[in-house]
């Protein structure tokens, strides 16, 4: 199995290079290659998921260099799960881009998509903190290209802000890593986990500064308040299909936070104490509130979707802030749900924006195929607001259950924003679909593949709801493994080095 661990990085890299070099200008061939490679990626991800479940964590040593000296990729249950989620979302967005012809509106959509897959997949798999930075840059530079796909003034100017914000994030990341290296002399995450407890107490302050810097970087990625300002402008201006794909990018921030907070800076480390939960909890609550108020006040549908993404990140970080196995398991379930639901609302916003003359949420304007669109919109709204029967309800229930001890403070802080979200979605839905207007004059675009992709996301959400029992049981074991990382550290074979 061992060589397959690097396949989620190598396969998209080769596919993207092939498409740029050999299939330049042949959109039909690029589409075939893209979908075929993503199908293969799905198969590999499924096999990796199976392997991580059965055999436990496994490391891949690049160039066969022993662990603290060379770069390692580590496959464990969490990274396998995230890669599987990524490949599923990639398949759906690639099909949607083909069906909605978004990939025709500019050059190199499919190569950039595959470079993004390479970066995100690598970020999920790597076991080396500096390598995590490198994969962050790979995924960012691909996302810059995707974000301005199709061009236009507003999109380009929003892109400049997005790049500038992320460049600051990259600099902070490097400061944090250099600090960590200066204190410990290693950047392998398992090695860090072993060395940090035995550091002299005098280095504790430097360590805490490094931890907070890394946390800030992941908060930028995960759109945690007060670092969420880039998200609404970026996601609302990006092409709908790209924004749907970016649903996984905020989760990269959540994944990295979870990995660092459980492996490198666990709560039982004396130098850290409760630093990370103390920072995450209020930030997550404010993120949730800002997302909910944003949904209520947004003037266009893409902005509603963007603030829904922020609110769902707030909920996910709220569950992560506790750093106990039960809460982490709830966070993982919510991350799965939130990725699919956020992608769905962006696809729905894109579908509606091509069936309605006016993008703003004021005044009546007919929506072509309004029956079908309203079904999709309300399904996405139900999922994001957390109403039964979809998985958003179960996810929030799990998170509330994990915070049972703080019932008086946390529960209202989750439930009131959920109500505001419900209100905002109802307002948007009634403006869009519930006005007595003439039927749309413009014929609806015929795009069966795009609609299939949107319904596939809905089906995935339904499957996540129906299979909640086995999924949460599997996630419970994953969360246990995260909070007791002995097997992960052992997979790096640190003692084997000469």
């Amino acid at each position: 199995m061992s060589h397959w661990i690097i396949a989620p990085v190598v396969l998209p890299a080769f596919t993207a290079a092939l498409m740029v070099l050999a299939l330049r200008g042949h959109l039909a061939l690029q589409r075939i290659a893209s979908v075929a490679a993503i199908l293969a990626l799905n198969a590999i991800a499924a096999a990796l998921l199976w392997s991580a479940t059965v055999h436990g964590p496994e490391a891949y040593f690049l160039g066969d260099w022993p662990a603290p000296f060379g770069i390692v990729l580590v496959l464990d249950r969490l990274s396998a799960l995230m890669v599987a989620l990524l490949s599923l979302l990639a398949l759906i967005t690639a099909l949607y881009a083909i069906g909605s012809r978004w990939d025709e509106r500019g050059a190199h959509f499919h190569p950039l998509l595959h470079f993004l897959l390479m970066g995100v997949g690598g970020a999920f798999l790597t076991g080396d903190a500096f390598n995590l930075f490198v994969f962050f840059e790979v995924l960012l530079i691909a996302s810059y290209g995707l974000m301005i796909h199709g061009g236009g003034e507003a999109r380009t100017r929003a892109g400049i802000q997005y790049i500038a914000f992320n460049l600051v994030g990259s600099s902070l990341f490097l400061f944090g890593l250099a600090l960590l290296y200066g204190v410990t002399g290693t950047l392998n995450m398992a090695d860090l986990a072993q060395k940090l407890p035995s550091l002299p107490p005098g280095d504790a302050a430097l360590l805490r500064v490094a931890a907070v810097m890394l946390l800030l970087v992941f908060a930028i990625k995960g759109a945690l308040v007060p670092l969420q300002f880039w998200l609404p402008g970026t996601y609302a201006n990006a092409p709908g299909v790209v924004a749907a794909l970016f649903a996984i990018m905020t989760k990269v921030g959540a994944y990295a936070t979870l990995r660092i907070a459980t492996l490198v800076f666990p709560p039982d480390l004396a130098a850290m104490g409760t630093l990370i939960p103390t920072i995450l909890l209020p930030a997550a609550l404010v993120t949730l509130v800002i997302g909910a108020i944003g949904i209520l006040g947004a003037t266009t549908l893409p902005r509603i979707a963007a603030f829904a993404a922020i609110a769902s990140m707030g909920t996910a970080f709220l569950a992560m802030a506790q750093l106990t196995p039960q809460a982490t398991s709830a966070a993982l379930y919510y991350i799965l749900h939130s990725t699919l639901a956020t992608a769905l609302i962006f696809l729905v916003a894109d579908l509606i924006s091509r069936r309605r003359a006016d993008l703003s949420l004021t005044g009546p304007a007919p929506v072509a195929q309004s029956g079908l669109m309203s079904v999709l919109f309300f399904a996405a709204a139900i999922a994001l607001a957390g109403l039964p029967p979809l998985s958003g309800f179960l996810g929030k229930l799990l998170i509330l259950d994990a915070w049972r001890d703080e019932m008086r403070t946390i529960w209202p802080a989750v439930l009131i924003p959920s109500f505001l979200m419900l209100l905002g979605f109802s307002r948007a839905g009634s403006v869009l679909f519930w006005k007595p207007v003439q039927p749309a004059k413009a014929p609806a675009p015929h795009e069966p593949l795009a609609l299939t992709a949107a319904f596939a996301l809905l089906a995935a959400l339904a499957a996540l709801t129906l299979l909640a029992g086995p999924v949460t049981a599997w996630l419970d074991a994953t969360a246990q493994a995260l909070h007791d990382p002995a097997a992960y550290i052992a997979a790096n074979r640190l003692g084997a080095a000469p």
Partner: protein
Amino acid sequence: MEALLASAIGLFTAVGIYLMLRLRTFPVILGLTFLSYAVNLFIFVSGRLAVNAAPIVGTTDTPADPLPQALVLTAIVISFGMTAVIMIMAIGGHLLAGHDRIDLDPRGDS
């Protein structure tokens, strides 16, 4: 020497942050460049300062740490590429919009 390097890094960071908070794209890009200079120096120093020491074991009694040199090389290449990207984007934005303000009009969503 430590004090000199530390204050140089601090100065670069301060200049970078000040320029980054401007409203036009050109100073912002300059600020980002200064910040990346600061961070490159900082990474380099994280392996401790060593004078007249090659990063090769056996050449001197106290060889320099080679890993930060490799890390800083990676960081330089990446920040160079990223600066090029944001430069092109800024020029494109300037040509499309006719001005180089960095803030967005909230009603101007595409």
